[in-house]
């Protein structure tokens, strides 16, 4: 790929975004739409700059919940997947309950968890974890079970222990699947954290971006609401890109998905 083409790849969506923002600003000004109905990008940017101390503190709170939930989802989802892969019976017994957790809407469970758990932070963490762990679990189970049959025979032929087969064959085979699940889970952890905050509606010093959105809407500070929303989106994109980079770095040597087409 040459430099010019690479530039164009980034320039095309960037220019489109700028054009949409300009059109938005132009329409808002032309029709004199008040800020409390629809603020223009300039007003939103101004709010973002003015409220940055408040918003950035809330951003850190939300990001912390999302990151911890993702770590918990990776540990528990990964361990459960390895456990499931040890025996079909364990998988058959437990998998339906994992599905139940996944299909039950988090907004419906969150109030219960908030009642049962004293610490709001822990409750938020649990909600975000419930949303994030399933893609990791189901993808990793699929990956652990899709090791090459002939390679598995080879391991058997050489008398490999269960542990050796897991460590040297099944886990590496599962890695691309796990990473694909991780990329989905990263976004879901953020969504889970925000949704749980909405339900909790917790205010005070340690409140996250979702509470800032609620607060701003009550106070009709719509530009701040949009600014918080933009921050959440930007974080989601950053998490997705970061996990994509992790995926690329781990797989670039050997996996088909990370290879560039030959030219």
């Amino acid at each position, binding site marked *: 790929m040459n430099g010019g083409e690479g530039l164009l790849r980034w320039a095309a969506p960037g220019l489109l975004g700028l054009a949409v923002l300009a059109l938005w600003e132009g329409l808002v000004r032309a029709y004199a739409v008040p800020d409390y109905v629809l603020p223009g990008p300039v007003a939103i940017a101004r709010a973002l700059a003015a409220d940055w101390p408040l918003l950035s503190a809330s951003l850190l709170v939300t990001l912390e919940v999302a990151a911890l939930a993702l770590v918990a989802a990776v540990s528990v989802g990964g361990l459960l997947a390895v456990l499931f892969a040890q025996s079909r019976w364990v998988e058959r017994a437990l998998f339906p309950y994992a599905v139940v957790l996944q299909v039950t809407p988090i907004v419906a469970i969150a109030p219960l968890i908030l009642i049962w758990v004293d610490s709001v932070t822990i409750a938020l963490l649990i909600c975000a974890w419930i949303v994030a762990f399933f893609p990791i679990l189901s993808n990793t189970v699929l990956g652990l079970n899709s090791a*090459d049959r002939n390679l598995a025979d080879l391991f058997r032929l050489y008398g490999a222990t269960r542990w050796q087969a897991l460590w040297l064959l099944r886990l590496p085979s599962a890695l691309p699947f796990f990473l694909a699940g991780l990329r989905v889970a990263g976004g879901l952890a953020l969504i889970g954290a925000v949704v749980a905050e909405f339900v909790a509606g917790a205010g005070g010093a340690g409140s996250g971006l979702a509470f800032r959105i609620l607060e701003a809407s009550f106070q009709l500070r719509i530009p701040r609401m949009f600014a918080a929303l933009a921050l959440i989106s930007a974080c989601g994109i950053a998490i997705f890109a970061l996990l994509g980079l992790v995926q690329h770095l781990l797989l670039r040597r050997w996996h088909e998905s990370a290879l560039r087409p030959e030219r």
Partner: protein
Amino acid sequence: MTAPSPSPPATREGASAASAPLVSLRGVGKRFANGTLALEGVDLDIAPGEFLSILGPSGCGKSTLLRLIAGLAEPSAGRVAWAPGHEERRREIGFVFQDPTLMPWATALDNVRLPLRLAGLPRAEGEARAAAALARVGLAGFERAWPRELSGGMRMRVSIARALVTRPSLLLMDEPFAALDELTRHRLNDDLLALWAESGITVVFVTHSVFESVYLSTRIAVMAARPGRVAAELRQDGAPAPREPEFRTSAAYAALCREASHALAAATAAAP
């Protein structure tokens, strides 16, 4: 592997007839869980040092037979017996699949080292032996290469190096060159023969190619299908002891191919 092949060790003279078989199959049958009878009444002796080809049409149970010899499956009838002193199979067998079956996440060296690693050999010793095995198949200098960077023929060489790294006494090969182009296949055939001649290893080679089996083997077991069984055994006495590439174009080769083709045709026609 490119060195001219020395003639086989003297001990191989008449080995197949005189000494006790390394592995002997008696009345071996295999019925799968779904009821398919893959093999029935197979009697076969594998003599130490021979190059035995198992020749047959697709679906005649050749691969199943190889898996039974390797101990990857258990026969549902009859038995597979090893010569005394050779009972511990995993030390004795190298297996080459139809596909190279390499771990894509590991370098050529790590792929070849796998059997030694599974046996608990220290890393330094394992790497030294794996590098030597790669050199034997003509891949010195490719230790750090990833499987996807290698050509089909080179991947198969890595697979062969992995099978040889434990210094097995029996090398089982399941149509290893079927997916390769003809030139690559011929070169691998010659290199395999050189390896066989210099190491004294016993080879059981499954193939559906009459020409390949005649070129390589000291003996051919022709199989028939449904149920899979050994229909004929051909001793390749007319073939020169160290094969030269010119053998492919000789009259003796043509005659042996004709004989093997007839045997295969008869076996296939007899199938219901």
